[in-house]
């Protein structure tokens, strides 16, 4: 009850433009995503205005430095920018060292920029579970752009694809040979590709290899995505990236963007459903000793989960109303 009142009050203040409310609401959602059920009805009509851009790529590729320069150029145009910078949680201690902010100091006093560092916590998709919610909060707050930096990714952490409007994949000259490029799931999720650290040898080569690989991919059969060279130490080439971002957003107009967002909402719905199911399940578990005994069989390894679930819920877990 207290929680609900707090979430509602903060959501109201968020819409009035309170930065403190935005910051506190992010923590509330991060610690207990169920709070979003109190917030969403209040902010729903303010959503969908921000252009949300994901920046992903291997550790140290220059994601933060690139976000820093993109922000600079967007600010020159007077756009308001929200930044979500995700770094990994330790799977052992649960703690995290969040260091992306160091590269964004140039904007630390700019009232048009809001930077929030987040740890992945219990998620392994390169973002934190709350990232999608935080994007919405920043959108409702009135940001024109929300830039999302993933953790340094390998070949499988691809959540950013279902979370943002435009995905920028950042590679570096020392990123490995073309076979490695072909394996990486990253090659299939980019709307724009950037070879950063192009001051180093091998940048043009990797851009060429990349072009060949992308042309072979069915997803890019219609048109190959732009491949750009940047140096995010001094910002060289970043203006072209900002142009490409704008072009991609334009190309996303109407049907394509809506289809993408529908897909995202579907995923969100299914995640919410799963979370609600688990919550109800835990309540049931607490109330029913019989269920606890059956679960014990799974925990000690003598029965498989499917058989026990089938036994506990013979008609399926979700049953439609018969009336």
């Amino acid at each position, binding site marked *: 009850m*207290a929680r609900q009142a707090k979430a509602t009050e903060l959501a109201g203040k968020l819409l009035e433009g309170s*930065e*403190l409310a935005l*910051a*506190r609401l*992010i*923590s509330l959602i*991060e*610690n*207990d995503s169920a709070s979003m059920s109190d917030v969403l009805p209040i902010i729903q009509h303010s959503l969908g205005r921000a252009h949300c851009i994901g920046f992903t790529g291997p550790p140290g590729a220059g994601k933060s430095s690139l976000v820093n320069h993109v922000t600079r150029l967007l600010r020159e145009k007077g756009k308001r920018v929200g930044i979500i910078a995700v770094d990994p*949680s*330790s799977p052992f*201690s*649960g*703690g*995290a*060292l*969040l*260091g992306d*902010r*160091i590269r964004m*100091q140039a904007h*630390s*006093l700019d009232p048009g920029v*809001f*930077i*929030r*560092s987040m*740890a992945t*916590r*219990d998620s392994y998709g390169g973002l934190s579970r709350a990232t999608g919610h935080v994007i919405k909060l920043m959108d409702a707050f009135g940001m024109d752009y929300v830039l999302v930096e993933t953790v340094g990714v390998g070949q499988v952490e691809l959540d950013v694809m279902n979370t943002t409007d435009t995905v920028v994949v950042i590679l570096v000259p020392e990123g490995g040979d073309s076979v490695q490029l072909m394996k990486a799931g990253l090659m299939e999720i980019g709307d724009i590709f950037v070879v950063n650290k192009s001051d180093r040898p091998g940048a043009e080569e990797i851009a060429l290899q990349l072009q060949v690989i992308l042309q072979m991919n069915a997803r890019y059969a219609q048109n190959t995505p732009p491949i750009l060279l940047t140096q995010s130490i001094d910002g060289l080439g970043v203006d072209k990236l900002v142009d490409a971002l704008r072009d991609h957003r334009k190309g996303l107009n109407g049907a394509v963007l809506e289809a993408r967002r529908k897909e995202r909402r579907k995923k969100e719905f299914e995640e919410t459903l799963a979370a609600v199911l688990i919550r109800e399940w835990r309540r049931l578990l607490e109330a029913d000793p019989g269920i606890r005994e059956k679960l014990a069989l799974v925990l000690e390894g003598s029965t498989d989960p499917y058989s026990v679930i089938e036994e506990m819920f013979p008609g399926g877990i979700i049953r439609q109303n018969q009336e």
Partner: protein
Amino acid sequence: MNFRIRVLLAKIGMDGHDRGARVVAGALREAGMEVIYTGPWQTVDQVTKAALQEDVDVIGISSLSYDHVLVPGLIENLRRHGADDILVIVGGIIPDDDVRMLEEAGVARVFHPGTKMSEIVEFISRAVSDRRKKAI
């Protein structure tokens, strides 16, 4: 619920000695906290704004060359922004007289060279959980 203690670790002023701050950052991470590390050469305004946006429970300032004298100004700044519920701690080389001055200004605790990491972790954990209880 998935609660984690969030700590902003910063150095203000011209002091570049960042070894201690890094050691503390690592230890707090090991203890399960989320540490936002800004690096050295921050201004009081930058630390204030970062603490607000990151919604931290604790600000830790590391000072080895007298920049701790800026900390009372930081606390005043936090108060002005409605964020005086953030716990402020200081570590490094701090003369005894200044320890008293800092505590009077609202610093929760000053840690000297050689402090055991476990002591820092315990202090933060206890202080934050006390504050949470009070807030509810």
